[in-house]
């Protein structure tokens, strides 16, 4: 405080006890909020650091590319890793096209009437359905009713319906970011609605759409509940090194499920094993996310208008 007084000789709006108190309050407020944020941010680093520290000793190329052995206490995670890739890939192949087209409908075609308000409401609510309810739905609809049995395709369909509303939401946002005047300019020169969408709207929102889809890769990879009863199994041995060792009708292992199994069902597993699985899963999810975030900020820097 004395420092301040020296720097500002005889200021016109000098410090009074009242303004001093105000400034102190300001500092306190800022401090409290900063501490709150720190309470959220610091655990993230501690947790990730701890998981890596405990698990890193096990992780090697061999760990990633060999099947689990010895009652899942030895060996690697190959079949689980490949299973996760299959589930993520298949479900995105289903949810991304439908989700993007649905968003195109809602943003470009839908008139503001009660029906489309109901559609929008359905999307919002679909996004809020708990993952375990999706699991029940997948079991009831795909595994039993459609007769797919527990398989990669049933699990992927379940995951696809779960991720679709988020893809719809992010795509809608990307489409809405394209200014309306571009569309009007196209209509004015006699372009049809679809020509406008195909030549102007989609090319200028594709990056935002892709970011949304990439973010769903990480979410799908981490899901456990929806696949537990629809396609994932505790243990399965597959051919090592063959990326097509699974088929759509097969049951598969998955990283998330494997972490659950090793943690809760396998007794006397080596201490580092679940940590190593968690690290691999977390690394995959966070890397994909970080890629999407960097991609997005790179795109923002080279906007075309």
């Amino acid at each position, binding site marked *: 405080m004395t420092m301040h007084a020296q720097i500002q000789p005889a200021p016109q709006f000098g410090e009074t006890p009242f303004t001093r108190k105000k400034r102190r309050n300001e500092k306190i407020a800022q401090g409290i909020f900063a501490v709150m944020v720190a309470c959220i941010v610091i655990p993230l680093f501690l947790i990730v650091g701890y998981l890596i520290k405990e698990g890193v000793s096990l992780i090697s190329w061999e760990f990633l590319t060999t099947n689990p052995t010895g009652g899942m206490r030895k060996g690697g995670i190959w079949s689980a890793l490949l299973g996760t890739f299959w589930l993520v890939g298949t479900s995105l192949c289903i949810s991304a096209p439908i989700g993007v087209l649905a968003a195109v409908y809602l943003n470009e075609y839908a008139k*503001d009437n009660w029906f489309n308000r109901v559609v929008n409401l359905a999307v919002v609510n679909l996004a809020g359905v708990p993952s375990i309810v999706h699991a029940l739905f997948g079991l009831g609809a795909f595994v039993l009713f459609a007769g797919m049995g527990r398989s990669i395709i049933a699990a992927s369909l379940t995951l696809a319906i779960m991720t679709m509303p988020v893809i719809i939401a992010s795509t809608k946002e990307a489409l809405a970011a394209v200014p309306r005047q571009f569309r009007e*300019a*196209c*209509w*004015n*020169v*006699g*372009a*049809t609605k679809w020509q406008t969408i195909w030549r102007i709207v989609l090319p*200028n929102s594709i990056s935002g759409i892709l970011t949304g889809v990439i973010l769903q890769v990480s979410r799908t990879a981490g899901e456990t509940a929806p696949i537990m009863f629809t396609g994932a199994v505790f243990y399965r041995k597959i051919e090592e090194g063959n990326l097509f060792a699974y088929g759509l009708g097969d049951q598969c292992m998955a990283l998330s499920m494997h972490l659950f199994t090793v943690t809760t069902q396998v007794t006397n597993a080596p201490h580092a094993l679940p940590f190593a699985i968690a690290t691999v899963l977390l690394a995959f999810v966070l890397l994909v996310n970080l890629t999407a975030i960097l991609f997005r900020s790179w795109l923002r820097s080279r906007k075309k208008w």
Partner: protein
Amino acid sequence: MVTPKVQVENLRLSYGSKEVIHGISFDIEPNEILGIIGPAQSGKTSLLRCINRTMEFTAGTKMSGTIRVDGEDTAKMRDVYGLRRRIGMVAPLPVGLPLSIYDNVAFAPRAAGMNNKSELSALVEKCLRQAALWDEVKDRLDSLGTKLSGGQQQRLTIARALSHSPEILCLDEFSIAIDPVTTMRIEDVLKELKKDMTIILVTNLVQQARRLAARTMFMWNGEIIELGPTEQLFGDNPKDKRTHDYVNGIFG
């Protein structure tokens, strides 16, 4: 007696429950420049959007009355895209599409199914020349249209509006975002274009209408106050006192 290029008959338009155009009728002759003046919110832009039927994209609008182009009722035309190609539209704020300059101009012909490269190039050059932009951009046709200056973008918009060879050109307060020098250049362009097409010039600058238009229409609150030869509106004795007050800056 020639068929009027555009005939508007008892046109009414409402947004929701609010009527903005209250049953107006007028004709536009071929190859004339019709100036439309009037204060903001008097329904000028809405009128243009009714003519090329892009009003349909705005939710909650209701239109009645008829608009005929070359004697044909636009509401009954099956090929609405064909109608829009016959009408060039230039919006108040320049809109360069986020495409290259070349693709901006080639957009409409391509959308109409024209794929021949040499034809396209010739057309692009012709339109850019007509819009007095060719010399400034001929060396960088691949750069983005959105990165041009405001005045250049407005001329690009005009070039795009010309690219589908319209019979009618609608300009909606085109000089709002550009400097006076560019405005004068475009006005010269319009005088040239008048030979080939009918021009509807909505303007906020009453003197612009005086410079260009043979006939001028004064709109106020969704009604036509006066439509007649430009000299009459701008002379000492227009039919309606409000016209006199508006063009002399007493209200508006």
